């Protein structure tokens, strides 16, 4: 009876919530209050695919959902992106019959790294995709190994893991484990022999803490690594990015499946490959996945372009408190051979909670902007001083840097006679303040 009531309340609140445009965690929260173990009382579908990681969870889940749906499967997934236990409860109950049976072929769950252990206590994933573990939101997450330990508690022996072999910490989940599907990249033309990053999270083996060596770096500490002591090394991959042509906007998986790219960044190709791998495992043909993926990417690639007067530009949405996402955006700007101006906005460090911490600025490789492709650099937002100080510690010539605290004035400056292409690099928490001016 409690179960029936919990499902009913959840469905009603979800219905009301949709009408008034409210968040998706409240209905689940109410259901959990009525029946705390409600999730364990639900009859789940054959496939429960979970996705987690520091960056790209949402886009990976969206791609998987798209491909599965295109191929005739019904999918229940957290579209609203609410990825803690309450949101997942809303998702599951919202897609159940009143008797508590999930009506879809596949349950696809994006889970917050820190809350996975609670969510998956009742819903054990059959497949678990882990894309990457980076320095991300230290103000909530502690550090990547802390997140690793939290995630470890959400992984069960019977779950098939789908792991990024090029990420040394993620791969540790698959150490001494058989039921793992590995994805990753062969040596790519854009690879570097030496690390390109301010810090090196691949310096030491995540397993035994002896020094590691890399034969190639795809970006930051993502690459082909091997421990000099315990034998821990990058695993061979079953699903492999065999080549990437960033300027041409195309990647190839397993030497034959070509996928178009909207975002000219390397870390996006890992999300695509993770989604490709998950879709393959449900039995969809590679050719078909590649086609559906290309269609999807071209339609939904998260690139916002704009015009300011005669100038054109792209908004490169990055994540504050996440240096690798900034490094990726900076690389895109630096690779623009036609020359460009770059604007950074740090106005609120976080949208969801308050912090004034700017340590993460020091982990970003701003030095790359020395590139002759980058002409002017504009720093804006409440924390412009901290950005300015950070740039004082680079070798970038002072004349290249313009400090304009108010975002509005910085916008006006963009509209004052220069012709270069513009890249605006900021977080989703701050991008609205810029977009509102367009």
């Amino acid at each position, binding site marked *: 009876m409690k179960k029936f009531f919990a499902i009913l309340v959840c469905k009603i609140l979800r219905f009301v919530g949709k009408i008034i445009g409210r968040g998706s965690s409240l209905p689940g929260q109410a259901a959990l209050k009525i029946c705390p173990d409600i999730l364990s009382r639900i009859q789940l579908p054959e496939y429960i695919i979970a996705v987690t990681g520091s960056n790209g969870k949402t886009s990976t889940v969206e791609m998987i959902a798209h491909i599965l749906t295109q191929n005739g499967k019904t999918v229940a997934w957290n579209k609203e992106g609410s990825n803690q236990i309450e949101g997942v409860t809303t998702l599951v109950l919202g897609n159940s019959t009143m008797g508590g049976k999930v009506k879809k072929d596949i349950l696809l769950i994006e889970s917050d790294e820190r809350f996975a252990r609670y969510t998956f206590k009742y819903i054990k994933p059959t497949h678990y995709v882990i894309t990457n573990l980076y*320095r991300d939101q*230290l*103000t*909530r*997450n*502690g*550090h*990547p*190994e*802390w997140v690793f*330990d939290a995630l470890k508690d959400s992984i069960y022996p019977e779950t098939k893991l789908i792991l990024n072999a090029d990420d040394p910490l993620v791969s540790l989940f698959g150490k001494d484990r058989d039921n793992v599907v590995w994805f990753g990249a062969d040596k790519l033309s854009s690879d570097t022999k030496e690390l390109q990053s*301010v*810090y*090196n999270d691949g*310096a*030491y083996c995540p397993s035994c*803490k002896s020094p590691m060596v890399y034969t190639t770096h795809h970006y930051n500490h993502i690459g082909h690594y091997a421990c000099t002591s315990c034998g821990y090394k990058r695993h061979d991959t079953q699903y492999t990015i065999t080549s990437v042509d960033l300027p041409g906007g195309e990647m190839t998986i397993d030497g034959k499946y070509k996928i178009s790219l909207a975002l000219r960044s390397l870390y996006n190709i890992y999300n695509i490959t993770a989604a490709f791998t998950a879709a393959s495992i449900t039995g969809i043909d590679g050719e078909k996945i590649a086609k559906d993926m290309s269609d999807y990417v071209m339609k939904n690639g998260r690139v916002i372009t704009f015009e300011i007067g005669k100038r054109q530009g792209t908004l490169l949405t990055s994540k504050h408190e996440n240096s690798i996402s900034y490094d990726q955006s900076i690389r895109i700007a630096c690779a623009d051979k036609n020359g460009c101006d770059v604007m950074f906005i740090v106005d609120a460090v976080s949208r969801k909670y*308050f*912090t*004034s*911490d*700017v*340590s*993460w*600025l*020091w*982990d970003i490789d701003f030095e790359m902007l020395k590139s002759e492709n980058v002409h002017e650099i504009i720093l804006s937002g*409440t*924390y412009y*001083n*901290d950005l*300015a*100080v950070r740039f*004082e*510690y680079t070798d970038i010539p002072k004349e290249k840097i313009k400090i304009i605290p108010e975002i509005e004035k910085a916008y006006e400056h963009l509209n004052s006679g220069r012709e270069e292409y513009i890249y605006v690099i900021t977080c989703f928490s701050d991008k609205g303040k810029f977009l509102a001016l367009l």
Partner: protein
Amino acid sequence: MKLLHLYYDIMNLYGDYANISAVERLFKLLGTDVSTDRKTFKDNVTLSDYDFIYIGSGTEKNRNAVMKDFRRFSDDIKSCIENNKVILMTGNSFEMLGKSVTDSSGRTEDALGIFSFTTTEQNKTRQTGDAIFTMEGTDKKLVGFINKCSCIESIDTPLFSVEMGMGNTDEDKHEGIRKNNFFGTHLTGPILIKNPYFLCYIASLISGKEITASEKTMAHEIAGYNVTLSELTKRIGN
């Protein structure tokens, strides 16, 4: 002037390295000859050769790996502290100097035993939060961020008083440890960048000359500090 960044490649969470860059840059601006050595496991190092020693924060596993190597400096670091060497250890690195570290599984490891405090880690809740601290001997508050999972007991000579944020234990309104010119604090990241006045305080101790934060050379540092202090102060009482 010789500066040492010890375990630079493993105890470097969230921009800690910039603490040594800040000291180096300040001395350069003042026209002082300055050089920095970056050393790690097994490297040959004589601590007494340096005017300033810095160690940053790491993951718990990294810090434990470092502690095994750091033992060889036990006597040296002790005499450095006694001889008024300027040493800054941020994040969980200073825990190595206590009596013991107990990890989240309950296993206790002897630390270097230079101080009598004990450290107990847990793995349930990450203790994170912005901080405003005050320090005896300076009228400028410190701002920063704490990111830890440990409780440190029995520190009788703390470094800071807590105005906002976490102390050495849940109840303690004091944070860090100070002895002579040794400074240990759980503030994470580039605290000497975020706190230009504290940077000058440390630099004065290193050089033995009074160095003050000047609007001319440190305009953005000071303005950034003021913004952070005012943003954080707004939160007190909320």
